[in-house]
């Protein structure tokens, strides 16, 4: 029995260590972003909780820096446009794939999902060669197209998952009550699958908002996004200002995560059979 209890403790300790490994980088970066000194370690003052050792100077320097502001604007333009494109096309495609009579479903799905699984470096190089030849190199349009292709698989997957629990009899009921196809789609089906559409869109936006390799190859100075600016910051001399930005991005991640979870619960409860 003692052995078993020891085993239990050992197992729990191992799991806790695993969670610490997962969360340590995030837990460390948040307090360090308030460091008054330009160091990446906790100063003695910080450990003593001396208010002098903590400051908002890195947050101020990020907020005042024109380059970061421009990068944010670029990230938003590219992210929103790519998301709209990916969500529209991806939702339509998922509706088609959900139809039992869709020909060649496995192959088509494999092609549509492939951007997600292809190594990003290969995507970036291919897009760089091809788009540059079309005059799309160093343009926002080129990045939007590439990011939309990378984001569409997320939408296809989430909407397909939502459609799997979709009760098609409600559509037939609507039809029998005289609703036309447009009305059936916009008034009945779309509202019911909207959690899947929204979370797919969030995935697509997050993917674009965090994408750096395609931007690195295809984008120019005018297309510097937040991750591209961070890349430059890490490659050159890494300044604690980057930690302040990182905290902003962590907060963004938590908000997106909670939204996606909330949407998932909503779609699960919306589709629970009522009869």
């Amino acid at each position, binding site marked *: 029995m003692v052995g078993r209890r020891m085993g239990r403790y050992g197992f729990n300790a191992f799991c806790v260590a695993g969670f610490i490994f997962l969360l340590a980088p995030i837990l460390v970066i948040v307090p360090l972003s308030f460091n008054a000194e330009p160091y990446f370690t906790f100063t003695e003052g910080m450990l003593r909780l001396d208010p002098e050792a903590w400051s908002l100077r890195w947050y101020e320097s990020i907020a005042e820096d024109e380059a970061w502001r421009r990068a944010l604007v670029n990230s938003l333009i590219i992210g929103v446009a790519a998301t709209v494109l990916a969500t529209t096309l991806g939702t339509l495609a998922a509706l088609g794939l959900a139809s039992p009579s869709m020909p060649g479903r496995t192959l088509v799905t494999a092609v549509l999902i492939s951007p997600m699984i292809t190594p990003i470096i290969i995507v970036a190089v291919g897009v760089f060669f091809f788009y540059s030849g079309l005059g799309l190199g160093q343009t926002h349009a080129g990045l939007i197209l590439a990011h939309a292709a990378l984001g569409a698989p997320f939408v296809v*997957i989430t909407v397909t998952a939502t459609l799997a629990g979709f009760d098609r009899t409600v559509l037939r009921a609507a039809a029998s009550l005289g609703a036309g196809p447009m009305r059936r789609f916009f008034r009945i089906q779309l509202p019911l699958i909207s959690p899947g559409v929204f979370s797919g869109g969030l995935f697509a936006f997050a993917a674009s908002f965090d994408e750096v390799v395609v931007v690195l190859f295809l984008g120019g100075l005018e297309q510097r996004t937040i991750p591209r600016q961070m890349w430059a910051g890490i490659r050159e001399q890494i300044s604690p200002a980057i930690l302040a930005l990182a905290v902003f991005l962590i907060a963004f*991640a938590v908000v997106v*995560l909670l939204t996606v979870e909330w949407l998932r619960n909503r779609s699960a409860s919306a589709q629970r059979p009522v009869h």
Partner: protein
Amino acid sequence: MKRILNLSATAPRLGALALVLPLLAFVTVSFVVPLGTLLGKSAYQPEVARVLPRTIAELRDWSGEGLPSEDAYAAMARELTALTENRPELARVAGAVNRVQSGMRGVLNRTARRLARAGQADSWRATLAGIDSDWEEPATWLAIREAGARFTLRHYLHALDLEQRSDGGIASKAADERVYTPLMWRTLLVSLGVTLLCLVIGYPIAYMITEAPPARGRILLLLVLVPFWTSLLVRTTAWIVLLQRQGVINGFLVSLGLVPDDGRLQMIYNMTGTFVAMTHVLLPFMVLPLYSVMRSIPRSHMAAAVSLGAAPLQAFRRVYLPQTLPGIGAGSLLVFILAIGYYITPALVGGRTGELISSQIAYHVQTSLNWGLAAALSSILLVAVTALYLVYSRAIGIERMRLG
């Protein structure tokens, strides 16, 4: 749209296809065709043949023994003279030939520059030889002919560290000249190692989440999802902050006196950095599929095995573990696929010794401008990933991939 939705009622096949078609067309144009272009570049190189058409045509008639005919010299001289007007084109051709045989960039540039001024001697052969004695070497012409071939497997030979011997056979390079095959092996081994680490760390975590009471289980799952959603660059930055010589872990060890101040550990910009950061980034991709499989295993199975007299470890090994194999397969395959193509993390924290094949692809696109080689390396990587992807979609089904 109205017509499409209408169609989907009347002619279901057409309706479904019409809904899928926009994305299929979009992905084809914005993604599949670029990849095709990339594959093409690995074996198709029309530039030299386009710029030096007559020279290449003359060289095609040449046996390769001794020196080519006077016609070939004349064609070369005329086409090079014409190129002095077009500097970028000259640079491209010189670069392409130089990649077949180093030193040729200088020969071609010098010859083009002097030809513009030099009058014609008795023969073009004498003129060219007067400018550079390399024109009397068969190797020079062989290199030009090689670079002028529209279709070539040269880049693949190069990418696989093979070379063509003078007798036409193919042999692998001497061990100390190999660059890419060791890197491919390293990429494979690192990916395997990272997959294994993710499994060892991820399996207990997934098990703990499954076994916890629902409320605590949800919180634990969220703790796995926070790093999953956090920007890759943020996580990589965090590891730099933690692991670097003046970083948090070293600072902690020094303050405890475990490590002398001048003997701080080098944990980043090497293989350790690559391993730690990649395992961290890919761990959620292991935990999530494992968790979704474990959740579907009834608890009664283990209880039944124990009540029938199995020791807990035996019950785990014979009853529980086999049922989680689909999750192990799905998670491992996913992590491995993502690992072998990984770029950002190794590039930022791997340093020289921790770099993977992806870094060489980036290097040849951006710095050495040897696009044919970059394309060949990409194609090899792409074939490996596609094979694994097919295994994944056959064995597990892509539609069942769970996100977040």
